[in-house]
């Protein structure tokens, strides 16, 4: 990918993603960022290695007693999965097209490539609603975290808005600008309620984004910094 991702999740957010303790919708947007960002892929793998080491070094009582022996016997009586089935599973997992997913998305006349982590959920989108150059389609989310796709046409401005919770946006294709920066594919933007902003698409191509809106939150000082310090890895 020619574009170098500039806006990344914080390490703290990556850690929660690697642990699997982050809310599923937020996990998904981080996973999609990783699909674009080799740097965060490496960090994620490092965090996993660290967590694996924690697991191995954890103190624990010995696995003796009938409960453990029973579980062991039960597992050993299970048929091993044949090697060809395993390699087929693995091939499916790393395939460009996820089973049950879509690898391409058509919005109006525009065709977009869908990153791997989003292929299944994008297949479940609601219908597009369009209003003056901005189209949105809801994805299955939760009560706390609303997930949607957002497509901004060329020369279109999203009306000035604030939000009561966090607004997390991942650019999937195209470019956009707001008062704070210029974003392109893979960039992750986190806005808190005290940010008012007017994202604009001033490029020649439409801009496709994934957005998560969280439920209203009580804010602590420094939360934005914790989530997204907007580190720049390449100067």
């Amino acid at each position: 990918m020619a574009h170098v991702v500039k806006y990344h999740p914080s390490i703290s957010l990556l850690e929660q993603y690697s642990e699997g303790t982050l809310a599923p919708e937020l996990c998904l947007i981080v996973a999609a960022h990783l699909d674009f960002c080799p740097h965060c892929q490496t960090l994620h793998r490092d965090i996993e290695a660290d967590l694996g080491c924690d697991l191995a070094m954890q103190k624990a009582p010995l696995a003796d007693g009938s409960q453990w022996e029973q579980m062991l016997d039960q597992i050993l009586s299970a048929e091993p999965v044949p090697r060809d089935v395993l390699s087929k599973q693995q091939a499916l997992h790393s395939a460009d097209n996820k089973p049950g997913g879509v690898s391409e998305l058509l919005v109006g006349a525009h065709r977009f490539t869908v990153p791997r982590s989003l292929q299944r959920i994008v297949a479940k989108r609601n219908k597009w609603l369009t209003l003056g150059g901005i189209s949105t389609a809801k994805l299955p989310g939760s009560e706390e975290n609303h997930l949607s796709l957002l497509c901004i046409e060329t020369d279109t401005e999203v009306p000035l808005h604030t939000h009561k919770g966090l607004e997390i946006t991942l650019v999937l294709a195209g470019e956009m600008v707001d008062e704070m920066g210029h974003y392109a594919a893979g960039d992750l933007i986190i806005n808190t309620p005290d940010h008012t902003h007017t994202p604009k698409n001033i490029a020649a191509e439409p801009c496709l984004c994934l957005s998560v809106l969280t439920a209203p939150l009580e804010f602590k000082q420094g939360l934005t910094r914790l989530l997204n310090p907007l580190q720049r890895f390449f100067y």
Partner: protein
Amino acid sequence: MLDPQQRSGHYGAEISLQSRPMTTQEITPAIAAGQWEEALAIVALHRDKSAYAELFRYFAPRLRAFGIKMFGNEQQAMEMVQDTMLNVWQKAALFDASRGCASTWIFTIARNVRFDMLRKKQSRKDDISADDLWADGDYPEQEDNQSQQWDVHLVAEKVAPHFHALPPAQRLVMEKVYLDELSHQEVSEQLGIPLGTVKSRIRLALDRLREAIDGPRS
């Protein structure tokens, strides 16, 4: 290689499970390098039940402790242990030592099992599953040159005040590398942790320091 005598010689006496006293006291693990990776390879190649049993006796109680931390109850923790260890038995052939330690692989299975258990409970597994979220280590290997570039910057005095804010495990590794000037290999030997973990901790610490120095946007 499959002769159990030879294997236990390879692993070192302190981790041979047969010779462990059968008590329930907490034990501090001592892991020989490559021990569990080799056990997984033997399970994958030969469906070797004794090699698996060693893995099981080591990891199952640790996964249980991890599960109790995550779920807050024993029943779900044990369900997670069983499902995770079943995966280890059935899918050992998928383990690729070039991508990381056995413990990392087992951790990722447990994390995914736990995630899908929680989703299933909410009947929402189908919307987002662990499979969508974690790519199973099949991202291409990255060139490891970024940390090197940053080594130079690290010398800068402005980094020092942020050192204390690093997590203890990362700080320890950083001190050994940058203050005591030990090689990564020496740190690995001194602390009894895998070389890959030393490198991981350095990269994580460097990124944390970078985050601390770059500062927030607003």
